[in-house]
């Protein structure tokens, strides 16, 4: 324990702006103010994986690490679709998940928005081919407001995507 407290007092903040360039600081500022303006300082996101490779999930988890710290901007990942403003969907939408995805969307309170994340949510952009086990066509099943490209999109790209979504948002 003594070593912990020694380290605690001797080291500075190790994750602050280490590689977050000036552009990222601007994005964070803008995100915070837009969340405050358009979602009363709290944007709740529910993530649903409809058949991805887990890379997109891993990057969304990374958004809560001390480098990105999305919670500080008022954006939080919540445990249930019933608590969410935004449904963040990743993956190809498999036949077995199709029903559950639509179910999750139906459980959300209005007003509700859907953002797709990762190339494989649009099958034509992804490396995967259509097979019998993939239902696909997420945008035809639920109304998608914004799409974040990338395979897998980096946390920076996801943050930029969220910002673009908020900007396009009429209010």
């Amino acid at each position, binding site marked *: *324990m003594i*070593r*912990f407290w020694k*380290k605690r007092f001797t080291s500075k903040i*190790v*994750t602050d702006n280490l*590689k977050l360039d000036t552009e990222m600081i601007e994005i964070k500022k803008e995100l915070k103010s837009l969340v405050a303006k358009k979602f009363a300082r709290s944007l709740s996101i529910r*993530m*649903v*994986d*409809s*058949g*991805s*490779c*887990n*890379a*997109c*999930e*891993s*990057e*969304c*988890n*990374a958004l*809560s*690490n*001390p*480098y990105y710290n999305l919670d500080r901007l008022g954006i939080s*990942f919540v*445990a*249930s*679709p019933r608590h969410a403003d935004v449904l963040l969907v990743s*993956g*190809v939408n*498999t*036949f*077995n*998940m199709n*029903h*559950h995805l639509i179910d*999750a969307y139906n459980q959300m309170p209005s007003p509700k928005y859907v953002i797709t994340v990762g190339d*494989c949510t649009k099958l034509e952009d992804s*490396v*995967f*081919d*259509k*097979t*019998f*086990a*993939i*239902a696909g066509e997420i945008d035809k099943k639920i109304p998608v407001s914004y799409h974040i490209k990338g*395979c*897998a999109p*980096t946390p920076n790209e996801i943050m930029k995507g969220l910002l673009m979504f908020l900007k396009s948002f009429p209010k």
Partner: protein
Amino acid sequence: MGRLIARFVQYNNQNLELVDVFESGCEKKIIKDEKIDSISKTYPTARWFERKIKDDYNVTIQGAYDNRVLLHHERFPKIHPMRKEFNKKSIDEVDFTPYPYEVINGEGVFNVSVGPIHAGIIEPGHFHFSQAGEQILHLEVRHFYKYRGIEKMCEGKTIEEIEKIVARISGNESVAYQSALNSIKFQSLHVKEDINQQLQNAILLELERLVHHFTDIGFIPNDGGFGAALSLGSKYAEDSKEILNHLSGSRFGFDSVSQSLHLENKKDMLLEFVSNMTKEIEWFEDWVSDIPSLWDRLDTTGPLSLKEAKYYGCVGVVARGSGLSNDVRNKSEIYKNYGFKEARDSVGDVASRFKIRLFEIKNSLQMVKNMIRDLKSFDISTCKEFKDGEFDSFVESSIGELYMHIKLKDGLIERFYVRDPSFINWQALHLMMPKDIIADFPLINKSCDLSYAGNDL
């Protein structure tokens, strides 16, 4: 015959052929009258293999005690997609047929269903508990929500065409999957892989293991109520991902294995990373060892005995935590020369698996340091003459032993089969439950940290 590694079916001309892969070797047998005999009473993990065969090929499993569907969920039509005559690209939903879960009945016993959509940011899967109060009586793991039909998708393509798909079967194990395919590629070319290319891929694989293990040493204490470790663990994971990004151009090492990345030009950066991380992990270990409330949660939780691990043929971190020697790297000359030591613990609880990860992080850092010193530049083989045949490869991913099988005919893939380490370990997960309460489940599940995407394919 030892442990059962895989059991699957492929075509041999027009006949179906059953392939059993045991530790001692491979056995092949032509299937007569579309019937095979079950071995699930001797090898408990044969159960999922056999249910999968039944769903894929409509082969009857004689003497099986479990005849339920595995891949095909409630609204799935009755099709057998791995048969040659099946070539549909889309199917329609049929009426809901309830799935009969394994449940324990009795006075006061109730069931808890969890999933497929979970509370955290994790992959979809279903867990069905039979509970007596807080005490778990039984758990059934039900997966294949992420079933994408990868095996069928790869059929009729060349090895080079499936490289991108294979890299994205499971994001956490991307480098491992690519290495397995890379090894098959060289077997088919009848060319020996350049030693420097092997070294490069070993470095990437160890970096991937670091990312995965760092994430886990944060998440396991977090599930045990010690959140501070998650902040540090996720910081280490982020640093490792960034290094992987600098070296390979992708934070997950996607599409990196069959290229020459010229890591020899980035030696200084990698060595600096290794020396920083070595200091950090020593400090981290010292720090968490001193938190009694954490070890109170980790010790004796989710035990898997050596006998059970052997009986189920467990692989990877789960096996090593229970004292079972199982690591593909044991058989590799490269790893032996660069300081590989197999981690082993004898208790088999969550604490064991946590300690295994800490040990492997230190060992991986040491090996990366040794390997990068010897790495020289190399050229990628330009040979493209793939010869037909059946090829197998084994790779130790961050979860455990990965087995891949490819059958090439006329230069095209006739059968692509891969068994993720999770496919075995998921089936043993229920053994760790009965002594614990339901609130311990996330902790136990995280301590094994199995893949859903690799399991479901």
